[in-house]
C-alpha cells in the first residue's frame, strides 16, 4: 500500500493552482467585499468606548435573559478589560459577527432550498459533512493562498467551518412544520413564496435560531484557529502563549474566549425561545398577559 499513490493530494494542488492562475480578479473581489464587512464591523465595535459596549451588552442580557445574567455579563466584561484584552476581544467579536452574518446569509437560503428539494438535499448533505468534519486547519492553507493573510481568509475559513449547523437546522425546521399548517396555508390560497414566508419560516424559527446559535459557537472556536493566518483577536493571545510556552498568557486568552462564548450563547439562545423566563421582558409580559387572560377566565365560568 505504501507504494500506491492515487495522487489526490496532487489533484488538490492542481485545483488550487488553477484557481489562483485564472480567478485572481474574482478572488480579489470577494476579498474586498468581505474585507469591507469585517473592517466595517471591527471599526464600529472598536470605535465605541468600552463602557458603552458593556452597558449595551448588560441591557441586552437583562432584556433577554435576566438580571443575574446581566450582573455576570458586566463582571465578565470588566474582567476581560482588567486582563488588558478588551481590544483583542472586540476584534474577535467582530470576526465572529462578520462570519456568522455571512454564514446566515448563505446558510438560511441554502437550508430552505434543501427543505424544498430532495435533490438539493442529496447534493448538499455530503458537502456539509465534508465542511464540518474536515480538520479546520486544512481550510487555512488554501484560504491563505487565495486571500493572503489577515482577517479576510480568517473570516472565509470560519464561514466554511461554521455554516453547516444553520443550514441543517433550517432544513430540518422547515421540513418539520406540521402538515396541517401547510394544508391551511394552501387552502387559503398561499402562493409558494407566501407559504414559505408566512407559514414555514415563522414556524421553523426556533429551529433556525438554534442553528444560528450553533453557528456562532463554532465560528468562535474557529476564529481562534484562524489567528494562525493573521486574523487577529484573542486567538493571537492564545497563540503567543503557546509559542512562548507562557501558561499565564495562554490561560488569559482562553478565559476571555470562554467568557465571550458564554455571553454569546446565552443571549442568542434566548432568541430561539418563545418567551424569556425572567428579566425586563417578563416584567412587561406579565402585565399584558394578565390583561389577556382575564376574559378567558370569565368565559369558562
Amino acid at each position, binding site marked *: 500500500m505504501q507504494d500506491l499513490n492515487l495522487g489526490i493530494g496532487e489533484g488538490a494542488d492542481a485545483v488550487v493552482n488553477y484557481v489562483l492562475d485564472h480567478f485572481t480578479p474574482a478572488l480579489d473581489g470577494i476579498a474586498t467585499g468581505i474585507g469591507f464587512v469585517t473592517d466595517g464591523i471591527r471599526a464600529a465595535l472598536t470605535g465605541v468606548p468600552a463602557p458603552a459596549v458593556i452597558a449595551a451588552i448588560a441591557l441586552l442580557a437583562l432584556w433577554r435573559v435576566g438580571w443575574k445574567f446581566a450582573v455576570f455579563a458586566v463582571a465578565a466584561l470588566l474582567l476581560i478589560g482588567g486582563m488588558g484584552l478588551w481590544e483583542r476581544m472586540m476584534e474577535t467579536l467582530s470576526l465572529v459577527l462578520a462570519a456568522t452574518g455571512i454564514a446566515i446569509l448563505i446558510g438560511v437560503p441554502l437550508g430552505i432550498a434543501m427543505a424544498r428539494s430532495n435533490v438539493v438535499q442529496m447534493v448538499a448533505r455530503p458537502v456539509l459533512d465534508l465542511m464540518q468534519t474536515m480538520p479546520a486547519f486544512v481550510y487555512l492553507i488554501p484560504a491563505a493562498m487565495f486571500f493572503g493573510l489577515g482577517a479576510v481568509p480568517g473570516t472565509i475559513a470560519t464561514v466554511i467551518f461554521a455554516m453547516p449547523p444553520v443550514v441543517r437546522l433550517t432544513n430540518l425546521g422547515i421540513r418539520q412544520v*406540521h402538515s*396541517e*399548517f401547510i*394544508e*391551511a*396555508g*394552501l*387552502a*387559503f*390560497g*398561499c*402562493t409558494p413564496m*407566501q407559504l414559505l414566508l*408566512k*407559514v414555514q419560516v*415563522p*414556524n421553523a*424559527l426556533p429551529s433556525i435560531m438554534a442553528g444560528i446559535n450553533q453557528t456562532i459557537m463554532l465560528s468562535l472556536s474557529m476564529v481562534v484557529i484562524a489567528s494562525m493566518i493573521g486574523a487577529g483577536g484573542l486567538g493571537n493571545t492564545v497563540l503567543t502563549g503557546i509559542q512562548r510556552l507562557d501558561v499565564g498568557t495562554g490561560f488569559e486568552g482562553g478565559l476571555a474566549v470562554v467568557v465571550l462564548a458564554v455571553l454569546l450563547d446565552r443571549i442568542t439562545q434566548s432568541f430561539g425561545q418563545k418567551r424569556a423566563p425572567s428579566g425586563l421582558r417578563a416584567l412587561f409580559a406579565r402585565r399584558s398577559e394578565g390583561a*389577556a*387572560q382575564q*376574559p*378567558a377566565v370569565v*368565559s*369558562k365560568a
Partner: protein
Amino acid sequence: MDTANQTTGGDAPAPVKIALRNVFKVFGDRPDVAIRMVREGRGKEEIHAATGCTVGVNDASFDIHAGEIFVIMGLSGSGKSTLLRLINRLIEPSSGEILVDGQDITKMSRRELIALRRRDMSMVFQSFALLPNRSVLDNAAFGLEVAGVSEGERHEKARAALQAVGLAAYAESRPDQLSGGMKQRVGLARALASEPTVLLMDEAFSALDPLIRAEMQDELLRLQSEHSRTIIFVSHDLDEAMRIGDRIAIMQHGKVVQVGTPDEIVSSPANDYVRSFFRNVDVSQVFRAGDIARESQVTLIERRGLAIPAALERMRQHDRDVAIVVGRDKTYHGMVTADSLAKAARSGGEDPYRKALLSEVEPIAADETLSDVMGKVAESPHPVPVVDAERRYVGAISKSALLRTLDRSGN
C-alpha cells in the same frame, strides 16, 4: 357502481354548486393501471398487491347544491377526508371532473386555483391549524392577508368574523391561550372572513368534547341561517351528520355508497353497510368498541400524584360516581369511584389515589366488536373504559350507550 350515483334528492330546488363526475384518487406510482383495475371490478387488496397503489376515492359522482350542508360520512379510512381535499385540490385527483360553478377545477392552472381558493373556498381543520405565531385577529385575517387585502380592511373583516363567532374580545390573544372550542371558533372565523361561497370542514368538531361539539353545531346552523353558504362537512359521527346535514353521502372503502337526506338514508338504506349505521341485523358485529366509546366521563390527569379533594369536587360538579385516571399522554391508568377515592384519602400514605384504582375494572380494546364486549358492559356496575392499541384512553361505554346503539337495529 349503480348505487354510487343514486342521488335520491327530493324536489332539489337549489342550483348545483359543486358536481363530481367519476372522480378517482389513487395513491401510488401507477394510478392509470390501478384505475383500469378498479373499472374491471377488482378489489382493493388485489389492486394493492398488483400495483402497490392504494385506491383512496373510487368513482365518486354526485352533486352538491348551493346553500346546503352536505355531510360526507364514513368510518375512518373510508376516504372521506381525501374526497374533501380533492374539492380544493389539496390532493390532486387522479381522474374525473370536479365542477365548481360549472368550471372544472381539475383543469385549472396553479394561478387560477389559488384565485379560486382565495375567493370561493375556505377550510376548517380537525386540529384547528391556527398559526401559533399570530394573534387571533391575524389568524382570522390570514386568508385576506394572503389575498393582498390592505391591513385596515382585512382587520375590519376579521373583527366582523370574530364578532360573528363571539370572540371579538380575544382579537389580541394568542391561539395557545384559548380553549379547544374557542380555537375552532377562530378557525371558523378565519374561514368566514374572506366571505367564501364554499366552506370545507374536515371533522371540524371531532376534537371537541361532546357539550362543546353540540354548541359548535348549533353555532354553525345559526351562521348558516344568517348567511347561507355551501358547506361540505366531513364527519364520522352519525349523530352529528343527522343533526346538521341537509344531505348525507356515505362512504365505504373509498366508494360513495349512498347520497340522500337523513330520512331517505334511514328509510331506504342502499346496502348493509349503510343499514348498519341505523338498523343492521347485527349492529354488534359492525360497530367496534372504539366507535361508540364516548369521552363523556370525568377524566383525572395524573401528574406527580393526584389532588384528591379537587378530583372529588370535579366529580361532584359533573354529577359522576366514577372517573377515569389518565396520564398526561392519555395513557389509561385506571378507574376510581368517589367512594374509593374518599377511602383512600382517609387512609393516607404515599400516592393514596393508587389504592383507589378499582382492581376489578379491565379496559376493553377499541377494536373489539360490540358482541365481544357486550357481556363485560352488561356485568360491570360502571361504564367500561376503552383503550386503543397504545393503551391510550379513548372513551367509555355505558350500558345506556350500548343499548341505544343496539336499539338502532330495532327501529
